[in-house]
């Protein structure tokens, strides 16, 4: 506690707990932008003396920030060439514009993209294609958009870079890209497959479109989506190198943030090669402008807030309580983390939840026999937090993005009807995850 000098001699545990609860409560109300809340909360931790500035900066996970920022720059540049829309339209045409086939293809494409890009970018690319195609086919877009929301969160859970909770867990516990692929990716195709089976019985059987309308969809020109071939080549080369580097990160001795930043730097270099100073300045400004700075600053503030309560001993206290409740039994603890994470992530933002859970789980290590014994708990947290996002419309940012686009297109996705179907399906996916975790890790 040498970094704490709380004003008026107040108890650091109480002060940090109060700031933590207030910060999270205001985030949940969504009355104030979450980045503002997190930054103010973080600064209050310092201003009230729970942390000094050096301690606060030590609490910020720059590996997470570097990985997020680097990937955001790569994706922002890559999407300009139109390759993702090319793949989405191409896949819709592969099934000869049959509605059910399109739903399956776009859902699979969404899941794969979400595993490699962030979920919000993925749905921003796929949802317009979905709305256009369903409009042409004169079929209800709701089942398509609904399934894509689920697919984005399922796909995002498969890799280190698929969803922010995985990035945070991977960074905090030094889990590699391969660790996520080997331990989480095997279960995601099964969850997606069973999701599609359920969707088929609810909507898929009745999906039809006449030949003329399907011909219209077949007339969509996916080649026209590629607006910049040189950029396409450069982006694909860099994306492939980045993925390869993630796979080889361990032997190369590279951290994920270094790889993402190197990829971003290389792509910026390649795309600006030969441009004059003004052209470079404009392009770099545009690329950095597309980074989601709200998310980055949200993370920064949150890391400081969580470090404050960790530093004051609250999380250790909570960890001991949880272990008392589960009797220190790893299976019960893993299941509790999985289910609580899933339900919590369905109703509140999973980023602050995971930010809190990481130090909390870390502090369980001595009681559970060391850091190695915690692995099932990390996978439980990752699966619970990512899949839990499917439980409601507010469970993940991607869900709200799709809902917004659907509403503007005249096909609103309402909170309650969505939740009535999505929540039981999310529970189903958590049951599958429970069985998988039990058989594989416990």
């Amino acid at each position: 506690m040498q970094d704490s000098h709380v004003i008026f001699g107040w108890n650091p545990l109480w002060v940090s707990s109060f700031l933590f609860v207030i910060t999270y409560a205001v985030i949940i109300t969504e009355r104030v932008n979450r980045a503002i809340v997190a930054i103010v909360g973080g600064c209050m931790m310092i201003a009230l003396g729970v942390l000094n500035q050096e301690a606060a900066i030590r609490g910020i996970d720059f590996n997470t920030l570097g990985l997020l920022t680097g990937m955001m720059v790569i994706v922002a540049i890559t999407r300009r060439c139109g390759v993702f829309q090319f793949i989405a339209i191409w896949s819709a045409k592969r099934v000869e514009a049959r509605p059910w086939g399109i739903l399956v293809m776009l859902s699979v494409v969404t899941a794969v993209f979400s595993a490699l890009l962030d979920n919000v970018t993925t749905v921003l690319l796929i949802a317009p294609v979905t709305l256009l195609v369903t409009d042409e086919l004169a079929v209800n877009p709701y089942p398509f958009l609904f399934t894509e929301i689920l697919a984005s969160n399922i796909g995002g859970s498969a890799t280190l870079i698929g969803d922010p909770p995985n990035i945070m867990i991977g960074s905090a516990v030094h889990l590699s890209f391969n660790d996520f692929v080997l331990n989480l990716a095997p279960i995601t195709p099964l969850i997606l497959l069973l999701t599609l089976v359920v969707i088929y019985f609810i909507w898929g059987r009745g999906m039809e479109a006449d030949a003329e309308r399907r011909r219209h969809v077949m007339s969509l020109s996916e080649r026209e989506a590629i607006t910049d071939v040189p950029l396409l080549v450069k982006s694909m080369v860099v994306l492939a190198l980045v993925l390869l580097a993630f796979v080889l990160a361990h032997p190369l001795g590279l951290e994920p943030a270094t790889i993402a930043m190197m990829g971003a730097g290389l792509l910026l270099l390649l795309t600006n090669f030969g441009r004059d100073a003004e052209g470079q300045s404009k392009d770099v400004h545009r690329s950095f402008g597309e980074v989601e700075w709200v998310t980055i600053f949200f993370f920064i503030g949150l890391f400081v807030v969580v470090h404050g309560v960790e530093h004051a001993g609250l999380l250790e206290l909570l960890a001991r309580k949880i272990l008392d409740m589960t009797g220190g039994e790893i299976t019960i603890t893993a299941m509790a983390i999985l289910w609580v994470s899933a339900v919590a992530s369905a109703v509140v933002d999973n980023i602050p939840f995971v930010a809190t859970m990481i130090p909390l789980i870390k502090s369980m290590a001595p009681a559970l026999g060391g850091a190695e014994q915690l692995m099932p708990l990390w996978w439980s947290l990752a699966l619970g937090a990512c899949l839990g996002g499917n439980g409601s419309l507010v469970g993940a940012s991607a869900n709200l993005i799709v809902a917004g686009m659907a509403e503007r297109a005249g096909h609103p996705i309402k909170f309650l009807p969505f939740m009535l179907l999505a929540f039981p399906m999310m529970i189903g996916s958590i049951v599958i995850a429970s069985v998988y975790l039990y058989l594989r890790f416990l």
Partner: protein
Amino acid sequence: MLPDDILIRTRTARTGMLIREVFEECLKARLQSLPFCDEEDKVVGRVTLKYIINRSIVPEYMAELAHVLGREMSAFEDMEARLKQVFDNSVEAYVQEPHAAIDSSTPLMKALAIMEHHDTSYLFVVDEGRYGGTLTIPGIAMWMSRLDKGR
């Protein structure tokens, strides 16, 4: 101070006005936009022809995928019917944020600088919240032309 004969004076859009009337007023004055006023005659927004047309015919997702659209699409077929329906709509659904505005005492050079700053070709002239006319680049050009002829 803006010269008296440089402004284009029009009606304002307000609650209950039909899109048909907005079109008529804009076409008569050769303007792309009208200010939208509240019950107290204060300018609280604007309606533009571009926004009305795009919102009625071109959904957001179609603009996003403009390059890939085929030549024969169902969406294109009922375009005229959709356009005709738009004319009977009330203007409220098409109101956007207020446009950049100046007051009538603004020097012309400053008005031009504000246009450049906002990358627009027109400004509403508003005095104490009330609309007085629209300053446009064609309007300024005509005024300059009159100056040239009277030289």
